[in-house]
């Protein structure tokens, strides 16, 4: 990459004097000119290389350079990206190209994984362009754009050009300018208030790995997409005062996402800005540790809701113990069920089943109430929702859908094939290690199935009472 950019030194952005804003724009213009007619994807790649390099050049100066330079740089990135987009539509959708573009952003392996996951989508032009824009945003964001304070009118004018592009693109491109505006406003309003991890910003070269360690690729993704959201507002009103609206939006989203209600002035930046609490250490290490600990406790809370019987448990070690037990029991259950399916299997004709289900699946759109549904059946199925289904597949699908619902399915049309006379059961409330509960459930379901078939065959509703008593007896026997 370095050699490539040095070859084109007159056009490349290795200009160290960022203060010369006009020069800058001129250089951008020339670079953009080269963009206007890419002869091949390789041309475009080189252009993107340059942009990537540009992005990398900014960090060492971010802390010290003029704010205007940064915003222009970003504006240029935006424009370049936009024009690149406009031409990408003409280029053949090339997932490899998109991958290479993604590589130019200085992400580590984690988010790279996300990108490659993105590429697994059915290849169309749009996802790859989206990925490129995201990567450009990311690279732009990772450069110290946080330092830029103002959106100068020039870059606004340049941004207006972007609006001429396609609607799908314009949203994303407008979003690119938002991080600058949002962070601009934040920086302006509270430059001295928030205790920032400024240890990070002067040394951005070493910090990206650290930052990447701290943040998930998830949060980064969300942040960049959130910034994309914010920018849309700002682009409509190119005035600087409109930063307030964008900023407050960003604030709210930030708050909700990060659940840090005690830090109201948290700017949406790459680095997590943490305010030291009253009476606590303000060491950067302790701040980082606190952030990490809070993340972990957040996730432990989520897991607590998931794992049954963990509401009373407090403390990491015990929680982890419970989680481990739960995961082990689930894995054992899977093995056991596969063993059982192995015994059932040879007696069934799987190929036909699979074909049937493929057809059924297409028709499925949620539970469909059966017209022959009798009020008695509602009493028999003692669990909450009782959707009626005519097909096995719907049964299975909705079974899987609702953990707490058990269904009785009657097929009163009397098909003689496999699908007929099926009482579909399932929906265990708690598929965990509580075996006793598991078995009571299973028995109930089997019995209800029996009742269902009984009613079906006899075809009279007054058998209902005859049906329930075995159920009651069954329970007593247990």
């Amino acid at each position, binding site marked *: 990459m370095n050699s490539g950019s040095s070859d084109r030194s007159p056009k490349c952005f290795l200009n160290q004097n960022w203060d010369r804003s006009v020069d800058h724009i001129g250089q951008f213009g020339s670079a953009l000119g080269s963009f206007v007619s890419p002869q091949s994807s390789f041309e475009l790649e080189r252009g993107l290389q340059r942009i990537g390099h540009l992005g990398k050049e900014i960090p060492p100066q971010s802390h010290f350079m003029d704010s205007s330079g940064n915003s222009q740089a970003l504006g240029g990135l935006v424009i370049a990206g936009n024009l690149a987009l406009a031409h990408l539509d003409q280029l053949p959708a090339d997932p490899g190209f998109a991958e290479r573009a993604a590589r130019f952003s200085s992400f580590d392996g984690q988010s790279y994984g996300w990108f*490659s996951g993105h590429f*697994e989508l059915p290849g169309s032009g749009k996802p790859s362009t989206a990925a490129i824009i995201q990567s450009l945003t990311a690279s732009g964001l990772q450069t110290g754009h946080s330092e830029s304070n103002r959106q100068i009118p020039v870059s606004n004018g340049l941004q207006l050009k972007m609006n001429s592009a396609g609607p799908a693109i314009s949203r994303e491109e407008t979003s690119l300018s938002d991080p600058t505006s949002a962070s601009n406003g934040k920086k302006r309003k509270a430059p001295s208030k928030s205790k920032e991890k400024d240890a990070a910003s002067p040394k951005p070269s070493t910090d990206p790995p650290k930052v990447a360690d701290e943040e998930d690729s998830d949060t980064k993704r969300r942040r960049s997409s959130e910034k994309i959201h914010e920018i849309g507002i700002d682009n409509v009103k190119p005035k600087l005062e409109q930063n307030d609206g964008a900023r407050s939006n960003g604030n709210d989203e930030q708050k909700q996402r990060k659940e840090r209600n005690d830090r109201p002035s948290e700017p949406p930046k790459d680095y997590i800005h943490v305010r030291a609490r009253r009476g606590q250490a303000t060491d950067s290490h302790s701040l980082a540790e606190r952030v990490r600990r809070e993340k972990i406790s957040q996730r432990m809370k989520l*897991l607590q809701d998931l794992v049954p019987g963990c509401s009373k448990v407090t403390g990491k070690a015990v929680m982890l113990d419970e989680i481990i037990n739960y*995961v082990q029991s689930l894995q054992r259950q899977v093995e056991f069920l596969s063993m059982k399916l192995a015994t059932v*299997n040879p007696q069934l004709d799987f190929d036909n089943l699979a074909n049937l289900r493929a057809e059924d699946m297409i028709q499925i759109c949620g539970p469909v109430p059966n017209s022959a549904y009798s009020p008695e059946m509602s009493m028999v199925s003692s669990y909450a929702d009782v959707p009626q289904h005519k097909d096995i*597949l719907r*049964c299975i699908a909705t079974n899987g859908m609702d953990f707490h619902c058990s269904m009785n399915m009657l097929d009163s049309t009397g098909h003689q094939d496999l699908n007929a006379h099926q009482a579909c059961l399932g929906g265990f409330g708690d598929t965990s290690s509580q075996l006793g509960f598991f078995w009571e459930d299973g028995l109930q379901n089997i019995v209800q199935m029996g009742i269902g*078939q009984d009613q079906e065959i006899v075809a009279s509703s007054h058998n209902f009472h005859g049906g329930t008593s075995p159920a009651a007896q069954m329970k007593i026997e247990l």
Partner: protein
Amino acid sequence: MQVTEAFKHAFLKQMLLGFQASAVSTKSMGFQERKNAIKLSADVAMAVARGSRKWTRGLIAGLSEERQNRSFLRLILGEQYESLLKPCHSSWKIPRCKKIVRRSLRVCWRKQKKNQSGVLARTLVEKRTQELKRLVPGGESMDGSSLLDETLDYVLSLRAQVDLMQSLLTTFEASKLSRSGWRLKGRGKAKAYTVVAWEEHVLWRKYMRRR
């Protein structure tokens, strides 16, 4: 992650396709073989339905380590198989700058000198995170918070897998019973069902005792 209906549909479909592909019902396989094939296709279906996550990639990487699974995996995944294996994130350790690690260790040491009480708790937690890393596929290369994230996801998917397999099983058994033509009525029928349930129960007990 939310367990949506679409996810379950995709899961089920993949599972059935997997059963078909491994020809579980037609070939004359031994019991163990069949069980392994079913489990394999269920796991692959879960990974495919979930999409690209760290644990899914780790799971597929782990499955492909056995030679016999590779042809099946290649069949099911197609071209995605190669691309999934290449990045090899599961075998990476998170690259950490040595300086930063050393510095943070020094700070931790200074703090530890002050309070020795937390050491025991920390080692317990450490042990358990190690074990969790072993359980969750691809967990070796994750750090604390992402490990918990992936565990959450994995637990949800496992639950969905168990539920789906359970409902599959019950419908198969129901169809089996109806096909074999039970002529009993009323209580007799209920009794027949209890027999089936009891057999299941015995099997389960046996299985659990083995563990």
